């Protein structure tokens, strides 16, 4: 963790005063439906420093929409209101062109399935080179060296061979590492990872997450890890927001998760079967407990 002024101390409410990396105020995303507008994100506020924040929730909780709203990737008819301040700039007031400069260069995003994020007709090396060239104009030899360096940074040591492969020739875990390498090339300040490992096998999940974690820490970046998997987020984040129906129902330090108080969080924790499972029946969420649906 970097020794930035806001440090690693916890800020739980929207009252946090120090300007961090990213400040989200009263973020609301609405989509029209036949039965009136639906708020998929409903008044979300949080501050993010150079730390690792986990956003956890089930499908429909609004967690992915939050990630997309930060990058202003919500398309009409979806509507986004609220304040987004990133590195002191008001993202909501930027033009689409200025926003494109922020996306990728300052904030990067890693998506769920690398097979859909990589261009199928370009080799891995070409795609990384392309990512390099969009942000600067390096010479040919330098491109080659930087591509190799990028692949090595995600522990793909056989860099020259891998650079020549097409996306369909690499495994899921390798693909996701390549995505991370590409996303980190412009040296962004914030990485948003939306379910980065849910398409991968358990053994590879750990590898990819540990790698991402190391890189984020070494570079002093901010990380928003969006996932449905509470134990996984608890392991790789400093702080956790639990979302349900567009709202944050619980906000706590990852190490305090076992002391979570909200019935939804407790219910989620209890509903997962364990390795040493002896319960005859798994506890099921009683959704009436907090007026959820």
């Amino acid at each position, binding site marked *: 963790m970097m020794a930035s002024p806001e440090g690693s101390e916890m800020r739980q409410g929207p009252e946090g005063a120090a300007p961090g990396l990213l400040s989200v105020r009263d973020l609301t995303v609405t989509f029209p439906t036949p039965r009136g507008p639906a708020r998929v994100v409903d008044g979300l506020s949080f501050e993010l420093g150079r730390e690792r924040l986990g956003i956890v929730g*089930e*499908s429909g909780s609004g967690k992915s929409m939050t990630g997309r709203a930060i990058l202003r990737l919500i398309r009409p008819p979806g509507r986004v209101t609220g304040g987004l301040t990133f590195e002191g700039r008001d993202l909501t007031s930027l033009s689409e062109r200025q926003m494109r400069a922020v996306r990728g260069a300052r904030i990067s995003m890693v998506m769920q399935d690398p097979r859909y994020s990589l261009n199928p007709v370009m080799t891995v090396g070409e795609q990384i080179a392309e990512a390099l060239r969009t942000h600067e104009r390096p010479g040919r030899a330098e491109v080659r060296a930087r591509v190799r360096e990028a692949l090595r940074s995600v522990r793909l040591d056989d860099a020259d061979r891998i650079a020549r492969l097409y996306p369909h020739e690499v495994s*899921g875990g390798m693909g996701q590492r390549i995505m991370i390498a590409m996303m980190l090339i412009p040296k962004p300040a914030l990485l948003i990872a939306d379910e980065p490992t849910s398409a991968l*096998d*358990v*053994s*590879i*999940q*750990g590898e990819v997450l540990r790698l991402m974690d190391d890189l984020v820490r070494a570079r002093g970046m901010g990380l928003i890890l969006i996932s*449905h*998997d*509470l*134990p*996984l987020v*608890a*392991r790789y984040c400093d702080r956790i927001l639990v979302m349900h129906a567009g709202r944050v129902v619980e906000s706590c330090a990852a*190490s305090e*998760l*076992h002391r979570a108080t909200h019935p939804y969080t407790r*219910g*989620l*924790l209890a*509903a*997962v*079967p*364990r*390795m*040493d*499972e002896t*319960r*005859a*029946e*798994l*506890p*099921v*969420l009683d959704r009436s407990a907090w007026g959820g649906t």
Partner: protein
Amino acid sequence: MGRDVTALRIRDLTVSYGETRAVEGVSLDVAEGESVALVGESGSGKSTVLKAITGLAPDWTGGIEIFGRPRGHRPDKALAATCQMVFQDPYGSLHPRRTVDAVLTEALRIHGIRDDDRVSRTLSEVGLDARFRFRYPHQLSGGQRQRVAIARALILRPRLLLLDEPTSALDVSVQAEILNLLKRLRAELGLTYLLVTHDLPVVGFLCERLAVMRGGRIVEVAPVAALRDGAFADPYSRSLHAESLRHDTEADP
């Protein structure tokens, strides 16, 4: 429930897709009333075993017997009444333009069963009331769809149920509901399960034995107690177990 009857007997099963062999020399017995898991990572061939049993992957050699009767290489009506399958994706396994009622009635119609009560009875067995009977899939949540898929698998009263990652596409809280349902149904109807999954904790909840697959072969068959004490003989099984354990315990340090 007698443990002397073999519900499923697989002998030296080899399945190929064109040139590549997805499964090689797999042998496994499942006793009636037992619940056995096939675990492994993607590409280990675990789903292919199910496809061979059902006839959806017809290109196999070896022997498959269900309740003592040898299986052919294609799906057939006789099989349908004793062995059914629940698929992974609750969104892909229901026809988007057919109501729950149409899905369930079709099974009865194919087998010439005239029993209108059975549809509502099966629905209530999987925890859906009459309101759901005439809904289209897009009017159902993921968990409700999976319940319908289970109802479709149960309506012909099979004794062996093949479960292909039945909860991996569902939310955690919904997964718990479906796992409870599967456990209850097995006890109530005396079903035999062959579960394919990559999720070891699910195995611990639902099964008595597990077969670990890697590269198309079974590397080890172990009792489910091995998940608790880690007493696996094969190094690959041990590493799989260790990785799952690490993931599992972080939630409550």
